[in-house]
């Protein structure tokens, strides 16, 4: 079914919002009065159901929201479940090494050593449970301090960072040069 202009606008607005949009905001965005906006939204809801689309329009509280249709739950689950456990990228290993040896350390300090914004990478490492927040630094802006996690230690068979013998660090240095 071909949509009329206002319906297409409604669809676009609900999509872009990603969350529930109040009738008031909806009406303002579509330049319609609230009653008409509501009638339009209910009609789009019917259309989606009739056409068995992948999304549906839900009436939530005083507004509407677009979400995936429950019949498509499995397909979406297959999408997100298919995250391959790849190894860390160069940038991630670098950032991890700085955090391991300089903890507790701020993002600003990591960026100073690497010479490039490392925000996203630190966040990723936190998400991977290799790095965690240790608290906040006393000082301007009270930046977050990061350190390595228990899971990080476990992966290297270490009980604590002190378990790391000094000699092995020197060995690392020799290998380097």
């Amino acid at each position: 079914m071909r949509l009329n202009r206002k319906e297409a606008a409604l669809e676009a607005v609900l999509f872009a919002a990603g969350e529930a949009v109040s009738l008031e905001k909806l009406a303002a965005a579509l330049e319609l009065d609230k009653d008409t906006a509501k009638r339009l939204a209910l009609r789009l809801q019917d259309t989606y159901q009739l056409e068995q689309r992948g999304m549906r329009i839900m009436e939530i509280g005083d507004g509407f929201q677009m979400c995936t249709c429950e019949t498509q739950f499995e397909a979406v689950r297959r999408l997100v479940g298919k995250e391959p456990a790849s190894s860390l990228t160069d940038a991630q290993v670098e950032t991890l090494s700085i955090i391991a040896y300089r903890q507790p350390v701020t993002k600003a300090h990591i960026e100073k050593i690497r010479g490039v914004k490392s925000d996203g990478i630190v966040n990723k490492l936190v998400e991977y449970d290799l790095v965690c927040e240790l608290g906040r630094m006393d000082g301007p802006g009270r930046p977050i301090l990061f350190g390595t996690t228990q899971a990080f230690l476990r992966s290297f068979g270490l009980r604590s960072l002190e378990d790391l013998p000094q000699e092995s660090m020197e060995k690392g240095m020799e290998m380097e040069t």
Partner: protein
Amino acid sequence: MELSYKLEIFEGPLDLLLHLVEKNKVDISEIPIALVAGQYLEHVREMGDCPMEVMSGFLEMAATLIYIKTKMLLPRHREQEGEAGLSAEEEKDALVARLLEYKKFKTLAKELADMQEAGGRHFYKSPSLPAGLLDDIPRPDPQELLAGLAFADLYKVFCSLLRQSDDRVDPVRSGFGKIRKESHTVHEKMEELLAGGKRGVKRSFREILAAEPERMGMIVLFLAVLELVKGGRIQARQSDAFDDILIEYL
């Protein structure tokens, strides 16, 4: 008009140079170095209190221009064998190539900016997964992520990073002080030099240079000397490489 022109901000030395080429309505490959070098220096002088890291790039280009101009002014010694470096023409060609490359990206950037305007008319949303699915997502296992990585590797990476971040501090440039505004033009400097001696008088270039407190002033002074040599007003002699240059008024 003149005012806004002077206040125009240039992205960098190449941007300024390109502007001068276009203003003089000359083909890039035919760039009149002598003319452009003078105009370039004027601009750099007007930049005034620029941060050192901005200024250094402009000065570097100024030095390149002066270097090429100098080589063009000086009589050629074709016979001299084993002269190191490139000829003035080759230096100029290299500069022209850089300028062309820069201009190409400036043009492409304009096209890209237009495309961004069109591309920016789409809206995207962040992922929104069906309720109940979020708890379902298996997180990658930290152990799997670190597979094949030894602690020694981590230390190696860390050490090499530290070395690089030490390298990043430019020991020469970071030692520079501030450059203050300098008000002399090449022309003024030439007059000043001419007033400083009569026919037959000999002066040490080193001594004149020593009175010049600013880097920019030295560059201008050197240019002025070259102009006077070219104009046959003075003669410059140097008995050996790195010796003082003796200036004789003609």
